[in-house]
Structures are given as C-alpha cells and as structure tokens.
C-alpha cells in the first residue's frame, strides 16, 4: 500500500523493489492522485517484454480522468487492472 501520492518518488521506490518480478499490485487507498510519471511507468511495465501484470486497488477519481486525458483508457484493459 502506498502511504501517499503515486508520484515520481514512489515510482523510483517501486522500481527498485520490483526488480524482475512479473506482477505488481499497488493499493492506492491513501493516494490523492497518480501523476503522469506513474502512468508512464505502469504503461511501460504492462507493454514491456516480458510484460508485468499490474493490479491497482482503490485508485482516486482523478486517475480515470488522467487516463482519459492521455487517451489511454482506450488502450488499458481497466477491467483486469483495477481490483474490485
């Protein structure tokens, strides 16, 4: 679970912890926002070779707005990415 916003600092920490794991689950209950650097990081993980399986829990409302702004809502498989 992230203790704050999903920003560049959090990306750097996760990147280090992730190493060569094949799955990443992030609980965003405490995040007010997810920034573009985090979105790009997740996108690269999901489309990389090998791809990382990304799961997000409780993303803030603004996260969906961000995806729409960058038109990634058409590309990301949100039903699989967002945990119920």
């Amino acid at each position, binding site marked *: 679970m992230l203790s*704050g*916003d999903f*920003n*560049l*600092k959090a990306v*750097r920490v996760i990147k280090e912890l992730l190493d060569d794991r094949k799955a990443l689950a992030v609980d965003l209950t405490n995040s*007010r*926002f997810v*920034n*573009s*650097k985090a*979105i*790009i990081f997740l*996108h*690269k993980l999901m*489309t990389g070779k090998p791809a990382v399986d990304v799961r997000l829990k409780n993303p*803030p*409302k*603004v996260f969906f*707005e*961000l995806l729409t*702004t*960058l*038109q*990634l809502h058409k*590309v990301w498989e949100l039903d699989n990415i967002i945990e119920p």
Partner: protein
Amino acid sequence: MEAHIYLEAEIPMVGSATDFTYKWCVNMGLQPDEAARMALAADEILTDIVLYAYPEEAGYIEIWYQYSFSEIEIIIQENGEPFDPGKYLYSLEKAMNENNFDGASQEIVRKMTDQFLFLNRGKDGKEFRLMKRFVSDDIRKTVGKGNEIADADHPGNVANQYLITPVTSEDAEDIAKLIYRSYSYTYSKEELYFPKRIEMAIRHNYKFGTIVRTESDVPAGYFAVLMSTDSLIGEVGEAVVSPTHRNRGLMKRMMNKLIEMSRERGLLGLFGEAVTVHTFSQKVNETYGFKSTALVITSSQKRVFKGLKTEPSDIMSVVVEFLPLSSRRRKPVILPDTYSDLLTEIYRQFRTVPAETSEANTSQKEHEGTNLDLNINYEKESALIIVRDVGTAFEASCNRMLRSIEDVKLLAVYIDLPLNQPRTDSAIQWLKEKEFILAGLMPLFHKETDYLRMQKIRVPVDFSLIQTHSDIAGKIKDRIQLEYNALHKEKGEA
C-alpha cells in the same frame, strides 16, 4: 491567506510542496477533489522542473499562492534551462508506437486547471501559472424568479429601527440575496452572487464590513471594505441598500461605521473605485472626504445600470478616490518631471502630504536591481505589473515581462511605478514609447508606498462617456485624453 515558498529543486521536495498545495487549496475553499487536481497540476510542473530545468545542477523553485474572491492562482517560477512548451505536444500515436510521452504533463496540467499559462521571461526565468475558479452555488439560480420581492423588499418590512452589526461569515447568504434583489444581474462584482465565496472571504479576513437588519432581523443593507494584500489600505468596494429601505440614511451610517472599523484595524487609508457612467458614487465619496487621484480605464461587457439612465459601454472606467485615515508621516516621494504639475495638484487636496525629496537624497544603490511582479485578473482580462524596484535594467526586464504576456488575451495592461525612486521618470518616458498613457496616483497602494499608474488600453475609448465629478478628476481625464489622442494620432500617421 496568501503564501510564498522557496524550495530546492530536488525530488523529495516535490512531495512536500504538493502536500502544502493540497492543504492550502482546501483551506481556501476548494473541495477535496478539486484541491487534489490542483496538487496534481503542481506536482506535474515541479517534477518536470526538477528533471529537465535542473538536470545536473542545483537550483531553486519559488511558488506563490494567491487568492481572490473568485479564483485561486499558483505561480511557479524557476531559472533553469530554457524550455519551449510548443515543441512538446502529446500524441497517443507517439506514446503507443515510440513510447514517447512528451507533452503528457502539460496536457494533464491543462486538464486539471481552469487556466494554464506559461510565461517565458527570458533572463528573468520562466513562470507557470495555474488558476482554478471556485465552484459554488449561484444565488441567481437558487432565488426563484417569482420570489424576487421577498424578505427585505416586502412593503410590510419597512422599519423604524435598524441594527448595524459587523458582518460574519454566517451573513453570506443574506448578502448575496440583498445584492440580487437590489441589482438583479447588474452588480459589477460577480463574486457577490456566490454565498460560499463571500463566506470564505469574510472568514479569511479578506473583507470586513457591516450589515444592517430591521427589528425583525430582515437584512436591509451591507457595506464592506476589501483588504489589500499588498499594503495597509482597503477598498470600500461593496455596498447595497435594499430598495425598500433607501433614503433612510443607512448608507451614511454604514460608511461611518466602516471608517471607524478601518481605523480600529490600523488601516492607513481607504480607496474607492467610482464608476464613470454616472457621477453618483463620486459625489457620495466626496461627502466623506475621498479625493480623486486617478482615472483607470478598463473594459467590460456592454451593460446598463438598473434604475439609472446610462449608455451601454464597452469600457468601464473608474475614478480612484482616496481617503487617508492616518496623519502618520508618509514615505517621501520624488515627483517625476513628466507629471510633477498634476501630481502636485493631486497631493494638494490632502491635509497631510508626503514630503518631496530630490534624487540627490536617494541612494541609487538601493535600487540597482529591477524587481517586477505580475498580477493577472482573468475575469477582467487585464494585467497589473507592479514595479517594486526600478533598477538599471528596468527597460530590458519590463520588455521581457510585456513580451511574455503578448499571447495572453488581455484588454488592458497597467504598470504601477514607485514614486520614491529616482529612475521612475525615465521609466515613464520609456513606457510612453511603449504606448502606455497616464492613469494617475495610487496612494499607498503597494507596501505603504505611493505609486504612479500607467495604462495601456487595447479597446477604443470614447471619452465622452466618461463622467467625472471633481475638478481634479476632470483634469486627470483631460490629461489622459490628451495622451490618448496624441498616441492615436501618431499611430494613424504611422
């Protein structure tokens, strides 16, 4: 409250700054979702500055948090590597095919804010301005049309006794209703139709004032002073008496109470901006001892005034009128040669005038550097440049500032020059070459110092529609008209 922070351009500082941004936005009245959007916008800009403006060197970022009754603005300044935002446009195609997300941050910032401006001030650095308007209920929509004559204006509510008390944030809705019922849609200050904005402004001490109620607690009048955030002065800016309760001396009682309250708060002076489509407000101000000091021309949508025979106009000029509240010694002034005759006449109206000093008595070294601040009024589509110091490089700095706002849709640009610095006269000459004309004296307007305002109007001005009352206001108008006509003649010849 306004805030200013100065931080090292390092990634760990970004989180601290966005935390502060979020909390400040909530405190100033934004809903948590909206505050998160502003915090995200600030995060995007700050992260990019750390990554790209200062990639290998240490640097600093300054952030200003500014509040007005209808919006908040966050200004982020840095002096890092040059950057052209036009070159970075987000494209989904590039993102998908080349993993190139250039421009994503800017796209997001635009989406998260109501207005995003990037100002390149050359050697003076870069400036990112993020603005968000307050969203709240509009009294014009919540008060039904069939219910316009109610409460205060009900004929049965005429009172013999009135109670004048200081306003509190709980009076906000009554104030908005008073404005709506008295002026319908024609009151010039939009924010007074939004109870939440009034409530926040009173709660944060941006305004104080009086409300008049009848014996049966029906609101009948309201008058407020808007505090300057830059000097110990206030504007007598919001006044209304419900039509049923007019001609009962309520305005006079409220004005006297406001002057008393302003003195108690230690204000050095009050100013009013009296419209010039009629002279009624100017005459009222005169009876309380206000003196005309400037004529500021601004633009507005064509509008007519309820109950007054006025011509609809594109321009909405105001006579600035000042009432000193303290006989405390004022900072000495250096009268610039260009306007020394007129300024002397303006000053002569007041009992206590600042001492005149000569350039020789002023240390040039004090003001070697140039220091400019920019305020943009998005609602009025105007900008005010405050010259804190007229340094040796004033012309270059001011030119960069003017160039940086060239692409911003502005109908008027004002420049306030300090009247206590020796280079002000040469700055005036240069500004005249840049098509600025006089506006007048702005007493104690910034940091308790007298300023001279110059103005550049980008819409045609019909001076026959500008009505002035006092002799001095008439003289100021004549001088401005002379400069305006000369400027337009020159332009016509060119």
